[in-house]
């Protein structure tokens, strides 16, 4: 049988290496499946096995150590074509590094076959043990032998959802086993046991592969053979523009504002601070103003403070922070804790709206202390305070805020709606 897939010989492996068995059997297996070299994408990892790709006439991709399974997964999902066979060659070292990728590919059911060349050590770098090294197996850097059993990747991949999993040894012609794995849809994995002739044999003189496998409980058998859950890449023909006309905010009102107002709202997470701030700037836009809103909150968005820096301006806003706000609104204890220093720095030209349940910090600002929380409830204290502030400042029409409020979900709160319509 003439080679169709291996075009450069001799193969680059040590005499007696199982990698040669895998490569030559791959040639036969692909021929048995009547595949064309262009039907196959061979993805190789780092390690002795990885230098094989230049011998192959298939498409070849040579990546990083431990990442070949993830790279092959991306190629498979990117091609999304069951007629293209993605085959990943990886060693036990690469499989150790990229264990999550193996579990993940099994779980997702990517259309590919992973062939693990398991010679139970890192061969290219001097024979260090991998997480696949069986108990008692010696390597040049572990002459006392491994202290515990290696991973059973066949059991792990099966458990994670692989469609077809089998462990065999690299002895004789294994092309039927490879062809069986290659022919499967979804994710298939073949673990091929070998002993590295340079490091494994020398460190474990007289040890036979089959005996070692038996002692380690590494059975040659099929671990999974089930209906494939083959991955299908979602490709939507049409998605909606993020800039739809729904975003449009019409100017219906006029503002008296002649220079920017910088505001700092500070309250508690979960109490509608960001939503209130957004309503306020929307009202600003309805009044023809330029606006910015910069949120500030801890990563745990449901607890602690929640603050918002707003700027409303008749002109273009460039710098969007407000380290020296004209107005501060504090609606809760968390908000006060976060904003206390800022409150203390306010001068006599600044304005502080603060819930009257809070201790008033020392400040030169003009203070408006009202029972926002008591009257509107904690969840609505900030928007209620903003109504009060606009009522006092009058820099844009109250109707603008009422309109955006009326169109928002918050207006569904009966008590708040009555308060707003009654007072403003």
């Amino acid at each position: 049988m003439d080679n169709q897939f291996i075009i450069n010989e001799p193969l680059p492996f040590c005499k007696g290496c199982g990698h040669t068995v895998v490569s030559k059997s791959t040639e036969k297996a692909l021929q048995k499946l009547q595949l064309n070299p262009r039907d196959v994408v061979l993805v190789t990892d780092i390690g002795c096995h990885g230098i094989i790709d230049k011998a192959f006439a298939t498409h070849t991709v040579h990546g990083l150590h431990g990442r070949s399974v993830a790279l092959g997964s991306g190629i498979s999902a990117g091609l999304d074509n069951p007629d293209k066979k993605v085959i990943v060659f990886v060693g036990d070292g690469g499989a150790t590094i990229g264990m999550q990728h193996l579990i993940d590919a099994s779980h997702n059911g990517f259309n590919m076959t992973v062939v693990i060349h398991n010679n139970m050590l890192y061969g290219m770098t001097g024979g260090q043990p991998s997480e696949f090294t069986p108990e008692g197996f010696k390597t040049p850097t572990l002459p006392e032998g491994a202290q515990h059993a290696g991973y059973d990747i066949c059991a792990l991949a099966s458990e994670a959802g692989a469609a077809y999993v089998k462990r065999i040894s690299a002895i004789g012609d294994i092309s039927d086993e490879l062809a069986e794995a290659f022919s499967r849809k979804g994710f298939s994995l073949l673990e091929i046991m070998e002993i590295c002739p340079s490091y494994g044999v020398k460190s474990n003189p007289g040890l036979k592969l089959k005996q070692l496998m038996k002692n380690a409980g590494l059975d040659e058998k099929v671990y999974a053979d089930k209906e494939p859950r083959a991955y299908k890449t979602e490709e939507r023909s049409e998605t909606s523009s993020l800039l739809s006309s729904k975003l449009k905010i019409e100017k219906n009102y006029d503002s008296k504002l002649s220079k920017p107002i910088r505001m700092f709202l500070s309250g508690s997470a979960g109490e509608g601070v960001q939503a209130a701030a957004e309503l306020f700037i929307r009202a600003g836009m309805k009044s023809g103003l330029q606006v910015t809103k910069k949120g500030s909150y801890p990563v745990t968005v449901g607890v602690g403070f929640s603050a918002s820096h707003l700027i409303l301006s008749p002109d273009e806003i460039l710098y969007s922070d407000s380290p020296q706000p004209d107005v501060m609104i504090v609606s809760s204890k968390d908000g006060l804790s976060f904003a206390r220093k800022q409150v203390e720095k306010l001068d006599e030209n600044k304005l502080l709206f603060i819930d009257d349940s809070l201790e008033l910090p020392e400040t030169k600002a003009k203070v408006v202390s009202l029972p926002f929380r008591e009257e509107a409830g904690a969840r609505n204290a900030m928007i209620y305070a903003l109504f009060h502030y606009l009522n006092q400042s009058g820099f844009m029409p109250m109707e603008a805020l009422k309109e955006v409020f009326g169109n928002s979900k918050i207006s569904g709160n009966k008590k708040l709606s009555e308060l707003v319509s009654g007072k403003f």
Partner: protein
Amino acid sequence: MQALTDGSRLMTESLVRSGADVFIGYPITPANNLYAYSKNRFKTFLAAPDEITTMQWMCGFSIAGHLPVTATSFPGFSLMMESINMAYMMELPMVIVLVQRLGPSTGTATCGAQGDLTLLEGMLSGGYNLPVLATSKANDCWTLAEKAVKTANKLRSPVVFLTSKEEMMTQFSFDLGLLEEISPVKRTFYSSDETYYPYKRDENAIPAFLPVSSNKHQVRITASTHNEQGILEGISEAALKNTLMISEKIEKNLGSYLDYELDEKEDAEILLVSWGVTANAVREAARELNNSGKTVSTFIPKTLLPLADVYVDIITKYKHIVFAEENHNSQLKKLIYGARVPSNVHCVNKIGRMIDPMEIIEEVKKHG
């Protein structure tokens, strides 16, 4: 048409309209909005289990002929770096949006920063650069996103699109009518009957691209040092030449993706320089200073890497140069001047908050 938006929305829409077809990502603050918008807008969206997987899947999709995008912040980006080196070496088109936040390490997720520029300058082993574009105002989220996609395709290279927390998360009023039309990138793949060499270059040092979906030609994609056929060759003359030609490609074509904003005032002796999130503070400081009779010019580079010679030409014309950056060591200044900074170069630096235009004005007033 006035709308309330944020930079993430503009950027995502522009990336899609420009022809990026896949978003792959792992969520991280402050890149979350990009992830969320992309989930609904990209034709294909993949939620990866981590950032190493993200970048490997990105490479896989690119090898298969797609133009993928991801968005992350430093903790995720640092995990991606080995794979970005791989993508650079394989010469795979893709866009990586890096949303800066306060570091080092996990730092503060919800605080912005400009701390990753020197990281990007040194991230490729060997000291090579890949193209880095940086937003400096809302409209850049639109125009530079298109440039990022088209540069990635044209140069057959990963492109880093640098931005920061406030640029991506702050909401602002914006006239959508100002946005220019975007046409999707036209991708051309190798179509000749002659043997395909994946790293054989044209006169601009750019190799023709062919996905592994090809039924006609063999495609070899390789991360290790390789010749123009894509075959590992160690330090052969052909392989080393190829390595140098990748860098040559990025440098030689700089003119096609060079972007900066220069507002030169006649008789100005002071130049304000910034990039990214601090650019607007510089623009505002300049507006104030010029309105008050103190003339200053401004220079906002948007193509940050590789550094263009013209940047040095612009800067060295001025008697005083003030750099403003939200980091502790003026990273752009460091890239331009190295260890020897002339005495007429001054800096405004802050970490943990945005730089106030007043702080820039105060610095300017110290120098005439």
